């Protein structure tokens, strides 16, 4: 496996690091692109703001409901104060400017429900979200790339058919079902507590080696469940891409000059078959942040996706809007990152 990886890495030209490419060729391009994002982001932020306002009621009415149903009387003046506190008495466009302006200076607003700044809530979960997502992507690639290569080289072999069937089952199985099965197995066979990233006794404990070990025991379920979904698709696409490339004349040329069979596949067709994937790297960014909401729910993972779902259910407007907004911004930067990566690995692409 390591030799495969190092061969792929070596296939990239020496002395051409991504940062290098950005520094030498792309700085004006990057600056231009970042400025180009502004209108898009502003436009989408307006839409988000409007959509969030659409459902009847707001945080104050739902607070009042709660208070009244528990028998507390609230005076009109108190209601007025409450509205003023959340800026709800201002006209719509002022409310928008207040929210969007905060974003510009890195303040995502205030969560009514948690009574804490959104920034804090997001940062808290960002680490775990990234950890889960990155390990899932890692799992996907470690499994999908070798299988994709095998299936392409041994097209229509028994192995190829087997992986195809498993892959299709993988695509068709809902993630949450897998999550349930895995949790059952983990509990029945390994006695690992169900759900979450930690056993109860470690949840609030300070970081120790034991806590890290506990994390390792729990993280493999989300890693495999979330990773498997992508695996099937990735290996099918890689197989198709590779089959397209395997008989191209440049591969024949390389074979004719004496390149050894394994290196032949890794250095030439695989390199090109991976290009489309490299261009999706940037788009992983936003999905990484949201994660799979349903799986997060089933597995009780502390991800941003869960937070978003909660926020929507409780009409916690700043929280929900801010998370969606964060994703929009990440998508924009993800697209830019994709283009840069693609230009880096494929010399035919130039920054224009």
């Amino acid at each position, binding site marked *: 496996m390591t030799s495969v990886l190092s061969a792929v890495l070596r296939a990239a030209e020496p002395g051409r690091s991504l940062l290098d490419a950005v520094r030498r060729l792309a700085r004006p391009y990057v600056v231009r692109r970042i400025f180009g994002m502004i209108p898009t982001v502003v436009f989408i932020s307006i839409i988000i703001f409007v959509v969030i306002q659409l459902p009847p009621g707001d945080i104050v009415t739902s607070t009042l409901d709660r208070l009244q149903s528990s028998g507390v009387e609230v005076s009109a003046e108190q209601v007025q104060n409450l509205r003023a506190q959340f800026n709800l008495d201002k006209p719509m466009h002022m409310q928008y400017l207040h929210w969007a302006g905060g974003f510009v200076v890195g303040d995502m607003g205030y969560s009514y429900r948690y009574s804490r700044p959104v920034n804090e809530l997001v940062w808290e979960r960002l680490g775990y979200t990234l950890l889960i997502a990155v390990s899932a992507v890692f799992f996907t690639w470690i499994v999908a790339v070798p299988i994709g290569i095998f299936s392409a080289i041994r097209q229509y072999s028994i192995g190829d058919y087997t992986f195809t069937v498993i892959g299709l089952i993988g695509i068709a199985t809902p993630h949450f079902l897998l999550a349930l099965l895995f949790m059952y197995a983990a509990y029945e066979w390994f006695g690992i507590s169900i759900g979450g990233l930690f056993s109860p006794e470690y949840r609030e404990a300070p970081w120790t080696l034991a806590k890290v070990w506990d994390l390792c025991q729990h993280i493999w379920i989300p890693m495999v469940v979330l990773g498997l979904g992508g695996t099937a698709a990735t290996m099918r696409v890689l197989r198709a891409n590779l089959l397209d490339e395997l008989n191209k004349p440049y591969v024949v040329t390389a074979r004719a000059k*004496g390149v050894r069979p394994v290196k032949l596949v890794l*250095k030439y067709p695989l390199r090109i078959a991976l290009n489309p994937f490299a261009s999706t790297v940037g788009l992983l960014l936003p999905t990484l942040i949201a994660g799979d909401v349903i799986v997060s729910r089933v597995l009780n993972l502390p991800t941003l996706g869960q937070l978003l779902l909660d926020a929507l259910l409780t009409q916690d407007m700043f929280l929900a809007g801010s998370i969606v907004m964060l994703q929009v911004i990440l998508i924009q930067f993800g697209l830019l990152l994709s283009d840069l990566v693609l230009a880096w690995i494929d010399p035919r692409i130039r920054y224009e």
Partner: protein
Amino acid sequence: MTAPVLEIRDLAVEFKTDTGLTRALRNVNFDVPRGEVTAIVGESGSGKSVTANCIMRLIQPPGRITGGSIRFAPTASQAFDIAALEDKDERLLDLRGGHISMVFQEPMTALSPVHNIGGQVAEAILCHREVSKEQAWAEAAQMLAHVGIGDIERRMTMYPFEFSGGMRQRVVIAMALVCNPEVLICDEPTTALDVTIQAEILTLIRNLQDELKNSVIFITHDLGVVAQIADHVVVMYQGRVLEIGTVRQVLKQPVHPYTKGLLKAIPGVVDPGERLATIASVVGDADITTPFPLIKLSDGRQVSLPRGHVPAELKP
């Protein structure tokens, strides 16, 4: 006279296709004399490329070598049968690009689009010799200069899309020659190029052969090119060899009706304004599809004809 570098005997290749078995080659027999240029001519689909790919063992499924032998006699080591080698045999991997190299028809697609020129040429060296990367790079630069590419330092780090067709073909030629192979196979190396570039590449190959003295197999459908470059000619048709001889014999005094037809169909041989003959009209009712075995004539050439059809003065 030294022994031929390649002796091809009864070579047969089949392709399994949806519509059945295609016999791409049947009983192909010819020798490649050492240090000279042998041209293989024939119309499109006659099996020229398949023959070349057999010598490099580049035939991929659904194709398969179903019979015959390709005896390769390197100057420095033991002769062996290329057709009989296992896929994993080190001699085969050594052979490709080391002892026998190939230049392809399509320079536009023959190079990897995402690897730089220098790296692709240097790799041919690294596949066959234990030298450092720097050494290989330096030798690649030398070879590229040799095939007429200027401004080497800059061009080595450029990519194929930045090169014209003629330049790319020079790169492919450099890549093929960089390990100084005994045999160079050129499979229609100029067909995809403009006429002026064609002439340049042809001259380049001719000059390099004069200098390096390797054996060249030059595949073409253009008899004008044959006259310019070849010492010997092998005429192929429908996967068979019809006539083998020196350039003088085959072009001046063809024996096989099909060869005669080919020659009549060259533009420029007939007077301007006159219609070109079609091969069919020249061949007439002569039987060119029955596979007769090659017979050796008194002047040394071989032809696939029944004994009775051989001209009296050439009867063996």
